[in-house]
């Protein structure tokens, strides 16, 4: 990510747009030159590298682009270390101690350097050089891993978009159903970054996910801006969404409109940003992947989709493992529970009941007898399949025929459109 002063963007009628780098000849040349410069500066001091960079940016209108790219190169692709044979802290201790004998004066300088040099077996210049060799700008670039130019460009552009979110009050994401949507990892990132999510809507019209934090409730705060910025690369692994964020306007820039009370930043899954976070695993467990494999071998009019639905419930959201979709448009959701404790299962059933959905099948591994373990199914019983070891897809399909939901008019239209094309 980039520091605020290296962010580049424009604002038009309250809409903020990051100034992204295009792979045009100027930028390609700049990136190549920077990578070359870092490679040349290998084994040189950081202040020397910085001087080279200052020379490079002098007179360039895009000097902030130069700084942004080098910020990423220095931060993510470079290793700096203190060089030299003499230990700087030791040199300092010796010199300062010796210097105590007299009031400090510059005419004693050379003499002190020579004394310390003799005691450490080094010449005076070496001693002088070692004095503050461990300061960050005195450190040596000992390793540089040149990135692929495209990777650097992607990283820079993503960092510009992330930077705009530092001042975000919240994110509003509109997600449309698409396979695989990979919602589960997304929701775990929400928790990981200390955020909160509210899910509304349905798969038919699309879901609205609002992300903010606990204290957002008491009025807009940008406290969670940094977390929202870190969240963005996780969102990029999800397909088919639009994002809109309300931002606190910058008042410290001359070219912005001081009367603006809020800015808006908009982004879609099609904008070409590239995530550097690891992509989610295809399946959460062997149980799920095994079921998927067996289902694939089955000749059936039902299609199996992964993590495509969000089921909002008061105070949370359920992400069923699978959705089964029939050729005729009927559908049913499937949740597979392998290992469980009675209280976990009770809570799960409770949440499913809260959703009010009758088109959800829960397959529970029969590790324990449900009734004996104290799990009450009540009216929910007919939506549960218990299985030992392996879950047979046929049993799921039998129940699917009973519980499946009829397609809405809208879905029917979509379906026929698809067939027509």
């Amino acid at each position, binding site marked *: 990510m980039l520091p605020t002063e290296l962010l580049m963007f424009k604002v038009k009628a309250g809409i903020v747009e990051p100034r992204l780098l295009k792979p045009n000849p100027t930028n390609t040349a700049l990136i190549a030159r920077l990578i070359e410069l870092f490679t040349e500066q290998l084994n040189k001091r950081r202040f020397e590298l910085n001087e080279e960079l200052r020379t490079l940016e002098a*007179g360039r*209108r895009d000097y902030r682009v130069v700084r942004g790219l080098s910020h990423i190169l220095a931060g993510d692709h470079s290793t700096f270390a203190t060089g030299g044979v003499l230990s700087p*802290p030791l040199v*300092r201790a010796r*010199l*300062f*101690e*010796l*210097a*105590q004998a*007299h*009031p*400090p*004066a*510059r005419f004693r*300088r050379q003499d*002190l350097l020579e004394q310390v040099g003799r005691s450490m077996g080094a010449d005076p210049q070496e001693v*002088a050089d070692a*004095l*503050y060799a*461990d*300061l*960050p700008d005195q450190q040596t670039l000992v390793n540089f891993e040149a990135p692929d130019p495209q990777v650097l460009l992607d990283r820079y552009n993503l960092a510009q978009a992330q930077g705009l979110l530092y001042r975000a009050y919240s994110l509003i994401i509109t997600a449309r159903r698409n396979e695989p949507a990979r919602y589960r990892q997304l929701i775990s990132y929400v928790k990981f970054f*200390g955020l*909160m*999510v*509210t899910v509304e809507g349905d798969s038919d019209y699309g879901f609205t996910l609002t992300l903010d*934090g*606990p*204290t957002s*409730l*008491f009025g807009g705060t940008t*406290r969670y801006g940094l977390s929202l910025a870190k969240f963005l690369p996780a969102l990029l692994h999800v397909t088919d969404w639009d994002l809109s964020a309300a931002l606190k306007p910058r008042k*410290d*820039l*001359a*070219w912005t409109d001081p009367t603006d009370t809020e800015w808006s930043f908009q982004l879609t899954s099609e904008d070409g940003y590239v995530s550097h976070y690891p992509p989610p695993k295809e399946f959460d467990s062997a149980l799920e992947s095994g079921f998927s494999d067996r289902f694939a071998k089955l000749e059936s009019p039902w299609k199996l989709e992964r993590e495509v639905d969000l089921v909002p419930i*008061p*105070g*949370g959201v359920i992400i069923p493992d699978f959705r089964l979709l029939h050729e005729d448009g009927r559908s049913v959701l499937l949740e597979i529970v392998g290992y469980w404790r009675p209280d976990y299962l009770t809570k799960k059933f409770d949440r499913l009941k809260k959703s009010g959905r009758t088109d959800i099948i829960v397959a529970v591994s029969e590790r324990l007898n449900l009734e004996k373990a104290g799990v009450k199914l009540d009216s929910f019983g007919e939506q549960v399949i218990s299985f030992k070891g392996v879950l047979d897809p046929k049993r799921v399909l039998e129940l699917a025929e009973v519980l499946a939901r009829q397609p809405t008019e809208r879905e029917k239209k979509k379906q026929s459109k698809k067939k027509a094309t």
Partner: protein
Amino acid sequence: MTVKLKHDRGTLITWETPEVIASLFTWDDRSQLYRAPGQCYRQVVETLRERGIKHQDEATEFKNLELRVSREIEPYLHQTEALAAWKQAGRQGVVVLPTGSGKTFVAQLAMRDTPRSTLICVPTIDLLHQWYSGLLATFPDANIGLLGGGSQDRTPVLTATYDSATIYAEELANQYALIIFDEAHHLPAPYTSVIAKMSLAPYRLGLTATPKRSDGREADLDALVGPVVYHKTPAELGGGALADYQDVQIRIRLSATEQARYDELIAQRNEFLWRMHIKLGSPDGWQKFINASGTLEGRKAMLAHREARSIAFGTEGKLRVLEEVLANHPSERTLIFTDDNAMVYRISREFFIPAITHQTPVKERHDLLQQFRAGTYRILVTSRVLNEGVDVPEASIAVVLSGTATEREHIQRLGRILRKSEGKKAVLYEVVTEGTSEERVSQQRRGEWNSNSGPRVPTATWEDVNAPD
């Protein structure tokens, strides 16, 4: 009905809100419960207790401490009074005392009398270590830790920088019953104020010499910590706790080459300002200049301004003066202050004087301060890092080589040498370059700048200081 209270990331949550506390909570549809800022904890619990409403408090993880004081120091009257006033106000509020009057000791007394897990927030790494060593000396058996400057402790007594406490505000919120804000004027910034807003701490103590802020947010301290419960100025405390000091301003002139370059740069800058209709003297002039520096030409003007500033601040003449001042005080504890790191390291490299900047590793800076206190090192050179409240009692000479125009900095720098020490005559040297914009900075710093009448006190030039009487 039993009201159950829990803590969630800097907020207080509950599922039942009897009418008496309903106004403090907001319904949170996202998680289907009622939520209030952590700060409301005390009011909620006090109200529930008063009304005799049954409640189950699962929100806090405060700990009771056994704080046995290992050294008995007789507090000054103002320290006793400040402590009493704070306790009288329900252990909430701000104590305003001049730098050097022993604010830290007031806080230690407050801790002794409020033996609960305590979080102490300080603005700098140096203060972090100073508090740490001070607490260790006073409460040797307590489990004391550090958060910030590379340390990540979570002890029942924790000293933290404002920055780190802000980053971890959510998880610290329900751990500490007493929260102490040193140099409390730092707290009201929008970024840092979350420490106080999220914290459940029922007991809060703010310490400062100058609650004033340039953005006027000092009023926010009332809501975050409590009102000012005790206030004494340096004049009111008189010579009791503070040493006398002598203020000497030394003016130096630029060399002919330096002056020529300076004039050229200033002319270049002014030409740009004139074309842009920016008046640096006007209230928003500086902001306008910064704003205008986004363009290529504006940037050139800003660079010219910076180079001119560095000529004015870092001139060779100042080093010559410094050398002379140091020779005139061959045995006294001396602190040298400069405005920027480059100057600190230049002095350290040329005179071999130990240096402390924000780049100095934590352990080394701790050692340097220790050695300075112990007398192993007699002189230290530092940038702003020692500005606020760091306890360096042995210093009797301060040399300010450059500075920025805020009143607080001046007061706090003075504070360095204001500490009471038997038979000590403190001297503050302020070295200013003549005929540059820096002059005005210096006058503003003393709170005496008046654009019409100029400086009030006539001062000697360097030549005069050197001249025989």
